[in-house]
């Protein structure tokens, strides 16, 4: 069951169910009269529910939402009409929205007179205003929220100054009912997490605070590939390993950072895509299996004459390492730096003059009993279409650990005294106090009280003599800080004594504001500047606040905002939940899913950075593409794997989100497009009006059932809608998905779609192509013919609804909680500001952080 949420259509129905179950018996008890005063227009007149409103509801809505028939499970007489203090205000809000939009009563039903409509709207509006106020009084929302996995990762990195996979052992996070990962109410805490937090804290501190001498650095460098390190046997059925360059690393630290520097240039025929270097690290545990993991990839744009040096970094413990004992009779027991050459689409490049193992056929299974063979074959000679493309490696160098200073910066940042360590016990005491005070203030994102500090010092002193060193005792004490609720949660305390009587709202403190800002725009802790401004109580001054938001948005760390917000708003994780059927799409490479997600993120980033109108998300005459996606879409585009802005001249199919692979594929079933999923996505994510989830026991549309076989999809949908149980909802859903039928499951354009006829149909059981009919009539009667008209319609006719959807999603994300009636005013105001500012996202962000909802708790 979903939780209630502002203007969330789905909750309307769910809520009604809750009401039916929860309130039925209460209603037999005498019902208190609800009274609400209205605005100046009807000053003096007091509307009462039983006298003025109830008869109207009965007359206008009773047929469908009454005791006999409760469409969408909504029976109005069961709702609590005590708006301010009852439980159903959110449902009533939805009722009001529907009435205001003219959707209810439906056009075919009897319509209210002007006076009747006024009574309804005024009673609801006034009552809901009261409800919003009383909601504030109750202070009933979760404001304290745990750091998400990614926030924790970023915060630990920024706090300790060490790049580590801190979140490795944390369980995945649940999505909140409104689709966010950072919703305080959904983020639970469990023993598993506490254990993982403590373990990560210790791992990080072991790395950040060092003891002892500068460790030995392992360095290897070669100009020529070291093929002898590889086994020369290839065994059937195993991924052949044909790296273009191998550097053997005999000795290395088991943990720590490494750096690989590659000097290389390329021969690139005119206009050809840039070739790419792919670096992986692996080892040799056996003769047939070379486990390896990719470190990174980079375009080689430089010439052979003036080669470029590429630097890759990673943590060596994240890559496959050999065991302690060499395998079999191979004397090499180190790690290998492996370099491959790939084209812009990620496929391995083949070089004349070398032989390669042919990988076993990917999709076709080998006949039973036969083992797949791996034959060696020479690379094909260059042709006019595939001219010779070459990378020349001048040198590959490996180094680990990477030490730029000793002790490292992470160490001296925490233990700032360096060599001037305190000598006497008294000095040490002061020093400890200083170290802990500084660290804890950054970790807690606010000044630390004397009491808090005292407890930490006592702990330090208690374990000091038992610990092997001063540093070890310090690590353990700092670990204490890193499992404190003040660190793991974003805490906003309530100051009860100063609570103003008329409102439960309290202004945010400057430090709290700094955290809200930094977790909103960077998904991490505030930086020094934000802390300084908070300390001087400058941050909350409107001018400074705006200036800071602009600074934060232009900082690289704001990429994190674009990524996280896009992922959650557009549900990009859904790409992983669709398995593309290789029988239908043998060419489809799963790596494209990553590119698709990246395209949608980059698109949002471009809207933000270039200050484009957010309406471009609905339809645009440009998009962002890289080489592999352009190839997939069948377009000419950039030569490299970097995303670039591309103008869509004349053909706008790929404009906006609806022309992007991420949306199209994630809302398919891996074989066919899924118009219902696509429609629901549009209604939910772009218009914030999701339809109700399907009721229990509804069969899914099955293309192979006798009645539906051989029909085009649109015809099947129509047949499905004719069923009484389905039609009610699907009349409002399907028309939004049908215009997208020209895009197949993996987002490619199609003029015909495959339909399977069963054996009874003429011609027997087979798959046939049926021309796509992408014309549709939207619920408001608008005729739409195909994708471009749908996008145009959304952009022209639904811009206000879309604006509100953007504002609602962004605000929920920024606040890290579900919105409620108390936020209604903020949403209303922000929506108008957003529309007035021509739908600029950066302007919306600036307005949002200065809104009441953002600045109060």
């Amino acid at each position, binding site marked *: 069951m979903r939780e209630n949420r502002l203007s969330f259509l789905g909750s309307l129905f769910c809520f009604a169910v809750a009401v039916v179950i929860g309130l039925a018996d209460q209603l037999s008890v005498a019902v208190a009269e609800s009274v609400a005063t209205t605005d100046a227009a009807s000053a003096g007149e007091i509307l009462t529910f039983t006298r003025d409103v109830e008869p109207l509801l009965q007359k206008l809505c009773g047929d469908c939402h009454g005791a006999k028939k409760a469409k969408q499970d909504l029976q109005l007489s069961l709702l609590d009409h005590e708006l301010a203090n009852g439980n159903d205000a959110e449902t009533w809000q939805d009722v009001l929205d529907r009435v205001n939009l003219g959707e209810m009563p439906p056009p075919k039903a009897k319509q209210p007179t002007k006076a009747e409509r006024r009574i309804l709207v005024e009673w609801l509006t006034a009552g809901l205003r009261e409800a919003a106020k009383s909601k504030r009084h109750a202070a009933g929302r979760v404001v304290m929220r745990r750091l998400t996995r990614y926030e924790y990762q970023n915060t630990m990195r920024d706090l300790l100054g060490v790049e580590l996979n801190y979140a490795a052992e944390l369980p995945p*996070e649940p999505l909140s009912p409104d689709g966010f990962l950072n919703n305080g109410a959904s983020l639970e805490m469990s023993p598993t997490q506490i254990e993982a937090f403590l373990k990560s804290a210790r791992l990080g501190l072991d790395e950040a605070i060092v003891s002892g001498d500068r460790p030995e650095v392992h360095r290897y460098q070669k100009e020529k590939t070291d093929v002898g390190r590889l086994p020369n046997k290839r065994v059937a*059925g195993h991924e052949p390993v044909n790296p273009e360059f191998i550097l053997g690393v005999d000795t290395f630290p088991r943990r720590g950072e490494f750096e690989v520097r590659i000097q290389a240039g390329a021969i690139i025929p005119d206009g050809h895509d840039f070739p790419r270097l792919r670096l992986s690290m692996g080892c040799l545990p056996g003769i047939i299996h070379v486990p390896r993991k990719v470190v990174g990839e980079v375009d080689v744009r430089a010439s052979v004459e003036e080669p470029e040096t590429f630097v890759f970094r990673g943590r060596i413990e994240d890559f496959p390492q050999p065991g302690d004992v060499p395998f079999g009779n191979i004397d090499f027991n180190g790690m290998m730096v492996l370099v491959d050459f790939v084209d812009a689409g990620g496929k391995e490049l083949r070089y004349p003059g070398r032989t390669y193992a042919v990988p076993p056929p990917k999709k076709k299974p080998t006949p039973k009993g036969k083992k797949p063979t791996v034959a060696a074959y020479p690379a094909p000679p260059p042709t006019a279409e595939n001219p010779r493309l070459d990378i020349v490696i001048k040198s590959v160098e490996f180094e680990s650990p990477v030490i730029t200073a000793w002790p490292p910066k992470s160490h001296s940042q925490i233990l700032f005294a360096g060599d001037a360590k305190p000598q006497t016990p008294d000095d040490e005491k002061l020093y400890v106090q200083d170290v802990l005070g500084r660290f804890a203030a950054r970790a807690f994102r606010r000044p630390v009280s004397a009491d808090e500090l005292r407890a930490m010092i006592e702990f330090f002193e208690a374990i000091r003599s038992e610990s092997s060193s001063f540093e070890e005792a310090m690590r353990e004490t700092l670990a204490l800080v890193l499992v404190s609720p003040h660190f793991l949660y974003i805490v906003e305390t309530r100051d009860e004594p100063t609570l103003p009587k008329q409102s439960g709202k309290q202004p945010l403190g400057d430090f709290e504001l700094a955290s809200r800002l930094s977790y909103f725009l960077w998904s991490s802790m505030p930086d020094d500047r934000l802390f300084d401004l908070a300390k001087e109580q400058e941050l909350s001054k409107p001018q400074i606040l705006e200036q800071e938001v602009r600074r934060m948005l232009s900082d690289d760390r704001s990429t994190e905002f674009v990524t996280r917000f896009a992922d959650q708003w557009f549900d990009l994780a859904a790409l992983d939940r669709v398995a593309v059927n290789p029988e239908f799409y043998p060419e489809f490479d799963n790596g494209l899913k990553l590119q698709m997600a990246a395209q949608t993120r980059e698109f949002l980033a471009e809207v933000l950075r270039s200050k484009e109108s957010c309406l471009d998300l609905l339809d645009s005459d440009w998009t962002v593409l890289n080489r592999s996606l352009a190839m997939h879409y069948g377009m000419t585009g950039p030569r490299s794997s970097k995303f670039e802005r591309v103008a869509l001249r004349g053909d706008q199919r790929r404009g906006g989100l609806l022309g992007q692979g991420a949306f199209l594929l994630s809302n398919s079933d891996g074989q066919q497009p899924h118009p219902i999923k696509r429609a629901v996505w549009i209604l939910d994510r772009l218009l914030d009006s999701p339809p109700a989830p399907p009721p229990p026991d509804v069969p899914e549309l099955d293309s192979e059932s006798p009645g539906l076989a051989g029909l085009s999809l649109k015809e099947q949908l129509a047949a499905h809608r004719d069923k009484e149980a389905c039609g009610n909802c699907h009349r409002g859903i399907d028309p939004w998905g049908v215009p997208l039928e020209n895009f197949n499951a993996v987002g490619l354009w199609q003029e015909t779609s495959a339909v399977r006829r069963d054996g009874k149909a003429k011609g027997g059981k087979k798959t046939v192509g049926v021309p796509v009919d992408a014309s549709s009539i939207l619920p408001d009667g608008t005729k739409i013919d195909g994708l471009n008209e749908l996008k145009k319609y959304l952009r022209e006719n639904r811009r206000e609804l879309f604006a509100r959807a953007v504002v609602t999603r962004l605000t929920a994300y920024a606040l890290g909680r579900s919105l409620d009636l108390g936020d209604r005013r903020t949403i209303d105001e922000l929506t108008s500001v957003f529309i007035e500012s021509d739908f600029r996202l950066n302007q919306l962000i600036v307005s949002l952080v200065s809104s009441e909802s953002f600045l109060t708790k």
Partner: protein
Amino acid sequence: MNKSWHLDRRTVLKGAGVALALPFFEGMSRSEEAKAVSQPKRICSVMFPYGIAVPKDDHPERDWGWFPRGEGKDYQLTNVLKPLEPLMDQVSIFGGLSHPNCRAMNGHDTGDTFLTANNLEAGSYRNKISLDQFVALRFGDATRIRSLTLSTDGGIGPRTRSTTLSYTPKGQPVPALSEPKLIFQRLFGQDDASQTDRRRLQNSASILDLVRDQSKSLRNNLGKPDQRKLDEFETSVREVEERVERSQRWLSVPLPDVDPSSIALDADPDGPKDYIRAIYDLMFLAFQTDMTRVATYQIGSYGPTIARTFPACIGLPGNWHGLAHGAGKKGGAEQMGKFDQFLAQNLARFLTRLQESPEGDGTMLDRTLVLYGSSNSKTHQNRNYPLLLAGGSQLGLTHNQYLRFSEKTPMSNLFVSMMQAVGLEVDQFADSTGTLSGLS
């Protein structure tokens, strides 16, 4: 990726038959201790989502239905459960059971309640303790780890679409582990034997204590809902403290020496065959080394689970959810049945391994109860769960039968029977009305 190099290799404990010493607890005599070591009793629960095909008896695809034909001792397995045939002396299949509290819930909401039998009360989601946690609490400190909670998706998942089967006494979801590597580490990775580790373990106790103090003083400055969040925090910290104390007691006992290369620890759900096998292997290993006696595994959740793509691994079209919805259509039961058969093959392999492992005067399976099934029959139907119970012939259970029940019998009665079989003095769980007749 081809992983044949570690398939079918038997999991070997280095120096097989390692004598697993338990720490000597006060109040436990040596002989009791020895008995507990040689004869541990265990409970394992495995759930899959979306239900099964239920074609009528005269349906042409009846043999792809999950439930057997016939009843009682006179039953015939269909294709789906055929893989269990050699094991039927240790298996009972049940028809007609479900949780009465959950029958009216949304069809996809019942993953959360498979082991809790609780009504989630639409809107105000509250769950209760699950069978495994209830048992784990009562088994207590007999093992290093109280219980193992696993799922393909990992974590807890969204409410009503949870990705875990386990719930604490307060009804809080227990996050499931999903990555074989992490599961292995949780089982065998914590060797606290070094000096630093010992000291740190000791520190952990004080750290957790102090953190709880901080939480308590923070409480006064927060609103009601936030205080609930702190409750959650404090309960979790308290539990880790208990785990730390337990670890300290186990310090003198060396961890079993297990060869990690015997399991496909790099398997992930992209390769379902290897993955499901690795998970069963890990549960087997956890039982064999007596690291724990309680485990749950959720093969997939009812939500947007990774497991939706699983049927593709044996060449079936569409996703799991789609297959389930199509199971009533022509040819649909066969496709669904083929996938359910695949799942049954995996279960059979796990049971066979338990049966082939001698223990005391019998085999591991003789004292291990494996509950297996789904909380839907046809998809969205919260009645007539497909269920079976395997193992426990030395715990007084009768097997080799297909028992059918009316809706008057709640599934919790099976839970009570299971708990009694493993020696717990329990006569009530959730909405139970007694034990399950015909099982003992």
